[in-house]
Structure formats: structure tokens, C-alpha cells
């Protein structure tokens, strides 16, 4: 049982005030940096933003840190986003983790499979920073900063 994710409150205010934790999963370090900037703009403190280069690294982080929202790329080496989401949904203690796909993926069947795995939203690259900012606020149930 992952104690870190066993008691997830429902955010209703600014994310930084509620100490929301966001995990960015993307194999591109430069894209992680760009997404991290947007997450910070959305009001999440830098110390609450975590990064993983693939799905396996993301699962390891989820073992130790309470994560409210995963921003997930799909096409990654080692463990891709679909494999990660499949593993995530097998875990009772991680059912409340929100997942937003941020990817170049356009394949309809694969996106439908991600939806069936409980993915909350999909944001296709290239995206405007404001789009991601709004999506983060929407998924976390807060007003944009």
C-alpha cells in the first residue's frame, strides 16, 4: 500500500495553497523543463514538481511521493505512457491520481485506450502554455493563478 497516495484531499483553492504535487513524465529533458515552467505558472511550488524520464521512473516516484496529477507523455523508451497508465490502474492506492496526457500522439485507437484507462484529459503537442495552465487548474479543481 502506498501511504503517500492513500488520503488524497479534493483541492478547492489555489494549488500551491493546497500543496498539490505534480509529476511530469516525458523522455525529453527540454520538454520537461518547458512543462515545469508552465506548472509553476499555474501556481505549483517548484519543490512540489517531480520529473521522470519514462513510466518506470514515474512508478518509482509514486512509491515515495504523494502525487495529485501526472502529466504524461506517451511515446517514451523503457516504459511508455500506456504501459505506465495500465500499471497505475492496477494499484488500488493510486486510483485517485489524475492523469493528463501531454503528447504528440494522434492515433485514435490509442487515445481511446488511454481514456478507458481513466485518463482525465489529452493535450496534444504543440500546445499554448495557457492551455496547459487551464487544464492543470481544471483537473485539480482550482482557479487558475
Amino acid at each position: 500500500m502506498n501511504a503517500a497516495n492513500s488520503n488524497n484531499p479534493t483541492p478547492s483553492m489555489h494549488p500551491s495553497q493546497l500543496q498539490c504535487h505534480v509529476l511530469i513524465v516525458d523522455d525529453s529533458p527540454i520538454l520537461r523543463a518547458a512543462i515545469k515552467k508552465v506548472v509553476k505558472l499555474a501556481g505549483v511550488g517548484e519543490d512540489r514538481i517531480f520529473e521522470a524520464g519514462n513510466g518506470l521512473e514515474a512508478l518509482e516516484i509514486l512509491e515515495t511521493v504523494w502525487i495529485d496529477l501526472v502529466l504524461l507523455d506517451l511515446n517514451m523508451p523503457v516504459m511508455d505512457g500506456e504501459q505506465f497508465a495500465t500499471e497505475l490502474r492496477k494499484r488500488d492506492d493510486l486510483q485517485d491520481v489524475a492523469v493528463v496526457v501531454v503528447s504528440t500522439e494522434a492515433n485514435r485507437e490509442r487515445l481511446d485506450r488511454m481514456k478507458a484507462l481513466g485518463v482525465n484529459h489529452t493535450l496534444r503537442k504543440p500546445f499554448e502554455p495557457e492551455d496547459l495552465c487551464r487544464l492543470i487548474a481544471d483537473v485539480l479543481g482550482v482557479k487558475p493563478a
Partner: protein
Amino acid sequence: MNTDPTNSTRPLDSDTLSQLAIEALERTAFVLADPCADPDALPSAEVFAEIDFHGPEQGGVDLAASRGFTRNLASSILGCDAAEVTDAQGDEALRELANILGGSVIYRLGGEQCAFSLGLPRLGSFQGWSGASGHESCVLDAEGERLEIRCHHRRAA
């Protein structure tokens, strides 16, 4: 609208490829670019990246860029001065641009019912670039730096 997820593809021409790249640059990095009428006036390409796709058609998107372009792209994405950007970060920025542009191309080809899938983007080489035969191609002037794009694809067997 394309409603057949297995066979239909929408047309792609060089102007559309150019517009997809311009949009990707603006949205991802706030880098402004325009189609270039005089490519010889731009710095030579030194960095190469490519990505494959498969589905109703199989093919790929290849990028060739001047070092100055990759440096500017990385600095815009990272929000730092271009002088602080390493060559490795520039390479990574172009690799990610190949990923994003590859996604835009397959979405253009496949539409909402897209049946295409992307491979992983990778850095390429001048040898690979010179041997590529592009169906569609364009050269962009991005603030005086070169970005050259080729897309090649053929109907899957």
C-alpha cells in the same frame, strides 16, 4: 472530415508542411519563422533530427538546422540566454521539434480518426539527410537561422 480510421489520408503539400512547422515553433517556443525565398543566404545545416511514422502510409519527417537555430530554439524553450545553451541542449530541442512536427504531420494526414503511429525521434546525420528524398519540403528563415524540413511517405503495403 476523414472518417475511415484505416485507409483514408488527407493531402499534405509543402506549404502545409511549412505552416505546420511555423505553428509548432510559435506554440512551443515562441520562435518566429517564415518560408525562405533565398535559402543560400542562410547559415548551413549542422544538426539533423528525424522521426518515422507508420499506418495507412509509412514515412518520416526529417529536420536539418543551423547550430544557431537549435541554440535559439533551446533558449526559447528553456527561457534562458542563447549563450548559456549547450550544443547538447540544442540537439535535444531539435529532436523534440521533430517529435512535435511528426505528430502534427500524422494528425494532418490522418485527421480525428488518425490511424498513424509515431516512432521515437532521434538525431540524424548529414549522410542520412543528403540521401533522403522528400515528397514535401520547405526551408524556413527563423530570425536569420535555417530550419529545413522534408517529409517522405508512401502508401503502406
